[in-house]
């Protein structure tokens, strides 16, 4: 399974499940913000059409987050000696909720492939430091959302003290 990173709100020591950009799940049409995946008229979703945003490293993740999605207390890391220079302007902007955490799951390389029977990673063709957790086959959107929610136990909090080493 590829190693994935995502910012999500914490609830009882695990990522909160739901249907927004800050939880474990996807935004659907009609919900808050731009939909992550568009079901067809019968409610089916398809591989290769979008899904839950993830990144291959905490650094790549943070660089792509707007300030309101970066936990405010991360600004304290902006002066960390091992922090890559490119991340300093990112962390100095942090203005997000204190309940947001960086979560990770998996161990393998960030390449396209199955995550479990229902989910697959697709690397963003326009940005190799970004990807989508998508349905692995045609399924109802509710089944896709439920499959994402079932990964809850697989996520753990990322150790940001290794941020610098991780990114070289």
């Amino acid at each position, binding site marked *: 399974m590829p190693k994935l990173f995502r910012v999500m709100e914490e609830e009882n020591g695990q990522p909160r499940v739901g249907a927004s950009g800050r939880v474990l799940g996807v935004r659907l049409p009609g919900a808050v913000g731009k939909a992550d995946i568009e079901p067809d008229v019968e409610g089916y979703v398809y591989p290769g059409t979008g899904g839950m945003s993830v990144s291959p490293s905490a650094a790549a993740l943070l660089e792509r987050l707007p300030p*309101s999605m970066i936990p405010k207390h991360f600004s304290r890391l902006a002066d960390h000696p091992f922090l890559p220079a490119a991340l300093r302007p990112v962390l100095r902007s942090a203005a997000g909720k204190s309940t947001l955490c960086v979560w990770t799951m998996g161990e393998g390389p960030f390449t396209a492939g199955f995550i479990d029977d229902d989910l697959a990673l697709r690397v963003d063709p326009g940005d190799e430091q970004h990807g989508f957790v998508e349905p692995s086959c045609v399924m109802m959107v509710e089944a896709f959302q439920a499959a994402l929610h079932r990964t809850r136990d697989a996520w753990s909090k990322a150790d940001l003290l290794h941020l610098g080493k991780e990114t070289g």
Partner: protein
Amino acid sequence: MSADKPLQLSPHLAEYVRLLLDLHRLFIQGKEDTQEADDLRDEMEVPASYLSREEVTFAQGVSGDLYQLQDDEICGRFDAPDQIQEWEARLRDASGQDDWLAVLELERTRPSSRPARDVLLSRALAYEKLGFPDIASAFAEYARRAACGSIPAVQDQPHSLVHTRASGGFGAG
């Protein structure tokens, strides 16, 4: 965002930056961990979901700059005379060429001796020119209050997390 690339002001970016200013106003009031602040962050998720990578980078810069309004900005600093001379020349060039993104970037890694009020006014002008009058007003108002002494907390050394770097790369990521 590269400073030589003109910023395209999308409605989503304008909305996001407007809400970001409101959020920082709550920070100034000490309300960063309140329901009011969290509700605002929830509201920001809509425009945030439409931002391009370049717009996200710009918004990060804005948010980092806005921390100056609570004397809590993290920025790069340097003291070497030759660096200061070079920095001043670059700032003159950038403003002379109306490259306001470059001006903002330069202010994020600046001479230790640069007065806070000069930074505030420089940012006010840059944001005004870039089409963010509310952000510009916030910096200008803070500079005005600092000048008349109603904000005694404005310091030229703005934050304990100040970098002294050999070269001005803090904001160049």
